[in-house]
């Protein structure tokens, strides 16, 4: 059912000015990500530039392209990225709590999170213990999310809870994990601030990652929490979203799942919706440039990201 409904969002026709708007909106929602063992401060510095000014030649366009929402890096890169992003409006997100497996003692994971915050991260992307979740130890998972939420709240930082849906096997589990994460963030008081708490599909290290089906299930959990409490929890699909067309499909899904009858949807904003991606930004730029100049671009027209 979820798959069928999710597939229906890919059938909408988005053209002309609506497409132009959608592409720019999607770009402003990108969490530009590098999570590799070979990352270096130099690579992160280059990516900071890309995050702040995604397209060097944007003077040739009708209006400059927006900066991306955030840069997402490993904790060891936070300190070097911090000064480069100050005052730019680009948030600095750090994965933490033993990313990507979460297979570390809770004390170590909390310490990891604290360090990232001390080094200057604005947002923490935590992972849950999927092993504990799948063996039914839900309380343990809820507890760890609560502890990290409290830490983030006390430091006024935002939190994204990565469910790693590719390892959760069923949509029922995805929904259960979503509810668990939202509930824990709610208990800590983190979600009192709109957009301070997010749920996120994947680490990007496991396939399948952000499919439309799991994203829909998670959006429904967010919708139900909103109806119950009025709180705005954010959503971040991450991994496997590479093309501009895919990103527009996701935006349609957000609008049709969380929007009101009059077409209003607070989630269509980088404060409440993000794309975790690395190559998506350049595909969005390609489409934006093609739309405005009429010229098909080459891959080497854009800096790597």
């Amino acid at each position, binding site marked *: 059912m979820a798959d069928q409904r999710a597939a229906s969002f890919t059938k909408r026709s988005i053209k002309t000015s609506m497409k132009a708007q959608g592409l720019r909106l999607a770009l402003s929602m990108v969490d530009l990500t590098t999570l590799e063992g070979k990352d270096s401060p130099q690579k992160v510095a280059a990516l900071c530039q890309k995050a702040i000014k995604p397209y060097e030649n944007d003077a040739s366009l009708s209006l400059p392209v927006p900066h991306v929402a955030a840069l997402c890096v490993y904790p060891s890169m936070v300190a070097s990225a911090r000064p480069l992003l100050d005052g730019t409006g680009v948030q600095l997100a750090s994965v933490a709590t033993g990313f990507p497996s979460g297979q570390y003692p809770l004390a170590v994971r909390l310490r990891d999170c604290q360090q990232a915050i001390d080094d200057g991260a604005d947002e923490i992307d935590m992972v849950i213990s999927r092993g504990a979740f799948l063996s039914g130890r839900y309380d343990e998972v809820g507890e760890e999310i609560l502890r990290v939420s409290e830490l983030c709240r006390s430091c006024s930082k935002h939190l994204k809870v990565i469910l790693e849906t590719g390892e959760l096997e069923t949509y029922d589990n995805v929904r259960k994990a979503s509810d668990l994460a939202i509930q824990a963030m709610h208990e800590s008081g983190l979600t009192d601030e709109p957009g301070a708490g997010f749920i996120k599909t994947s680490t990007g290290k496991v396939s399948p990652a952000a499919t439309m089906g799991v994203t829909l299930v998670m959006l429904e959990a967010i919708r139900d929490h909103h109806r119950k409490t009025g709180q705005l929890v954010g959503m971040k699909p991450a991994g496997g979203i590479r093309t501009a067309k895919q990103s527009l499909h996701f935006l349609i899904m957000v609008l049709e799942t969380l929007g009101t009858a009059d077409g209003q949807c607070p989630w269509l904003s980088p404060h409440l919706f993000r794309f975790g991606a690395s190559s998506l930004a350049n595909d969005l730029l390609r489409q934006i440039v093609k739309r405005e100049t*009429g*010229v*098909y*671009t*080459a*891959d080497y*027209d854009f800096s790597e990201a």
Partner: protein
Amino acid sequence: MVSAALLHEYAGFNMTDRLAITKTHKLFIGGSFPRTESGRSLKIVDNSEQVVAHLCRASRKDLRNAVEVAAKAQPGWQKATAYLRGQILYRMAEMMEGKRAELAETISSVTEHGQAEAEVAASIDRLVAFAGWADKHQQVLGCANPVSGPYHNFTFPEPIGVIAAISGDTWPLLELVSLIAPVICTGNAVVALASQSNPIPACIFAEVCATSDVPGGVVNILTGFRDELIEHIAMHRQIGGVLGSAELSSDERTALRLGSAENLKRVAFVSPGEDTGDWLNAELCHSPAWLEPAVEFKTIWHPSAS
């Protein structure tokens, strides 16, 4: 065991005249045969204005898709050994040999130059000739430059990347093959636009490519209107060079040159000579000069021992 009585009973349903199964010609992009995304078609008529076929009328988005896959396939093709590229070109000639009759028939049904068989034979020979050049052109086009100093200085040809090849209409098969063979011989990927008046032989040639171990995306063939596609070929920044038949009209050539100035594409309009019959001339058409528009020369310095 089928009952004889039942067979007899149903015998009346058998059609005595077999219906002709005509081939649906489609585009050739990334090693498969998709229809145009635009859903439009192109009417092909013979000299007596009889419609002989409906073909895909490629759109700029088909062009975009073809360039996309060509750009992905090209690095691997360039990295393949020159020997392998030669083997594959020769394989194309072999496969084409088996399609001689079909190719000649599709040429003569629309293009009435009366030399269909000669055109097919020359096309096959061209593939064989450039199969040979694949691992030999570097030695002919490249050189060790004379320098005075403790270093060597070499110049050698490298592929450009993605090249667009645009066929004329006189020889619907031969011109296309003459443009494509040198381009892929040197390690480029090609997006070819078939003859507008008779693109059918080009569609058969696509089947040759599909069955000759040519990696998907290295050869892509579009059928459609030149005046619709030329502008986008010229402007597309991922296309590194344009190789057109010298038969193209002066308007078409101007459009290609103007658009190509944008990203400094190499543009060349080629023909073996003044006379259209020259396309059949092996001596003129098997020359390594045909390879030059498909390569970029790189010069490097290398320290020597002394």
